[in-house]
C-alpha cells in the first residue's frame, strides 16, 4: 500500500508511475479522504488559472491584434 506522501507526490508531479503504482494509487484514493481532497484541490487549481486567464483574455481584442501582427510581418521584409 502506498502512503499519502507518495500518492500526493505522484499526483502533483503528474509523472506516470507505471501500471502497478497506478492501480495502488487508485485504491489509495478510494480509501483516503485526505488524498481525495488533495486531488480535488489540484483540480480546483487548474480551473482557477484557466478562469483567470479567460477573464484577462477577454480584455484583448484578438482579431485586432492579429491584424496588426500580420501587417507588421508583411512590412518587416527580410533583411536581405
Amino acid at each position, binding site marked *: 500500500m502506498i502512503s*499519502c506522501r507518495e500518492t500526493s507526490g505522484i499526483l502533483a508531479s503528474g509523472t506516470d508511475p507505471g501500471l502497478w503504482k497506478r492501480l495502488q494509487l487508485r485504491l489509495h484514493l478510494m480509501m483516503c479522504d485526505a488524498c481525495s481532497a488533495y486531488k480535488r*484541490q489540484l483540480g480546483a487549481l487548474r480551473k482557477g488559472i484557466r478562469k*483567470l486567464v479567460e477573464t484577462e483574455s477577454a480584455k484583448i481584442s484578438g482579431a485586432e491584434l492579429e491584424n496588426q501582427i500580420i501587417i507588421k*510581418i508583411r512590412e*518587416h521584409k527580410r533583411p536581405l
Partner: protein
Amino acid sequence: MANRELFADRRFIESLRRRDNDAIERLVREYTRHLTNAALGMGFDPNAAGELAQDVWITFFEKAPSFEGRSHVRTFLFGILYNKALEKRRERRFSELDDNIEAVMDARFDPRGRWLSPPMDPERFAMGMETGRMIEKCLDGLPPQQRTAFVLKEVEDGSTEEICNILEVSATNLGVLLFRARNRLRECLEKQMEGPK
C-alpha cells in the same frame, strides 16, 4: 489536414520561409491567442501580453529561414515566448516566495507518510479562488520556470514532450517543477483562506 499537421508539413514550412502571405495569416490566426493566454498566465497584463505576442512573431519570422522543422512550430513559438518573458521579468523584478517547498511538504506528513492535518475542504478551497485575486497573488510568488511549466500544462494542455522542449528540461525535471508549483500554490492559497491565526 488538421492545422496542427499542416503546420508540420515541409511545404508549409517552406512557405513560411518565403513569407508567403497565406501561410503567415494562417499561423498568426491560429496561435496568437495561445501566446497571449500563456503570457497572461505568466503574469503579464493584457496590454503587455499583446506586445509580447507581437515581439514573439517578429522574432519567429526573423528566425524562420533557419527553422528546420525538427520541433513543431508551436513548440518553437512558445520557446521564443518563454525566453522573452524571462528577459522582461528580469527587468520587472517580481518578489518570489522564498519558502522551501520540499521542507514544507516534509512537515505535512508523519513518519509513516500519513497526512498530519488533511488538506482543506476542496469545495471551500475552490470557492476561495473565485475572485481570481488570491490565485493571482500566489502565482506571482512562483519562480518563472515553475510558473511557466504550470501554465503550459494547465492552460495550454501541453504534452510532457512539448513542455520539456520549450523549457529545455528533462521529463523528471518537469515533474519536479510541477510538484513544486502545485504545492506552492496550494499552500499559499490555504494560508490565505485560513487567514491569520
